[in-house]
């Protein structure tokens, strides 16, 4: 049973426009959420996170929104740049001590020049 779902496998946007990447989760115990970015032949790198006590966290061009009642989060990238083209993984944690993360399947973002 997939607890973190990224239902759209890919997304293509024009450079300068907004990219919105969605993620849904089913486990009510998740209280911390992260987004990772991965380029081919490299390990994932941490992008941005949000605690369940917040509904928004912003870092430069990247903003994550959390809707706990809908068990939904989204990553907004504004403006999108060609260098943002990568696979984006949503991850969630229910165990602050162990730091164990549950990852979604990822979304491939392509930003067209």
């Amino acid at each position, binding site marked *: 049973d997939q607890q973190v779902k990224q239902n759209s496998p890919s997304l293509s946007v024009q450079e300068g426009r907004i990219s919105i990447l969605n993620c849904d989760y089913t486990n009510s115990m998740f209280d911390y959420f*992260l987004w990772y970015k991965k380029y081919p*032949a*490299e390990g994932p790198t941490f992008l941005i*996170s949000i605690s369940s006590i917040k509904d928004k966290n912003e870092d430069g061009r990247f903003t994550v929104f959390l809707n706990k009642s809908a068990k939904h989060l989204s990553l907004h990238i504004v403006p999108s740049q060609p260098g943002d083209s990568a696979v984006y993984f949503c991850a969630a944690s229910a165990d*602050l001590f162990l730091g*164990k993360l549950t990852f979604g399947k990822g979304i491939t973002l392509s930003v067209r020049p």
Partner: protein
Amino acid sequence: DVKVTQSSRYLVKRTGEKVFLECVQDMDHENMFWYRQDPGLGLRLIYFSYDVKMKEKGDIPEGYSVSREKKERFSLILESASTNQTSMYLCASSLGTSGGAPLNEQYFGPGTRLTVT
């Protein structure tokens, strides 16, 4: 900067061989993790460790074992490699409970592309 290194970027092994994948982190992190990444399946947790000599099964531990004799090193062992273990293997570490932020942020190594023929 946190650095997580993996012993090989590419590895080709034969079916039935015993395979060792090594991972080292240099930031005194308590937690270490092994994942495999497959197309359409995302990152799946194989094993993790929250202390030396401690290990916990992840979501797909079958066919794998791990060893953590020192805090900085976490090894993944394929006892008898099979073709369905052909995959990208990713090691990660995280700080744990010793303060700092965010506790759950994991730092990944570059990955090992393992092919079993």
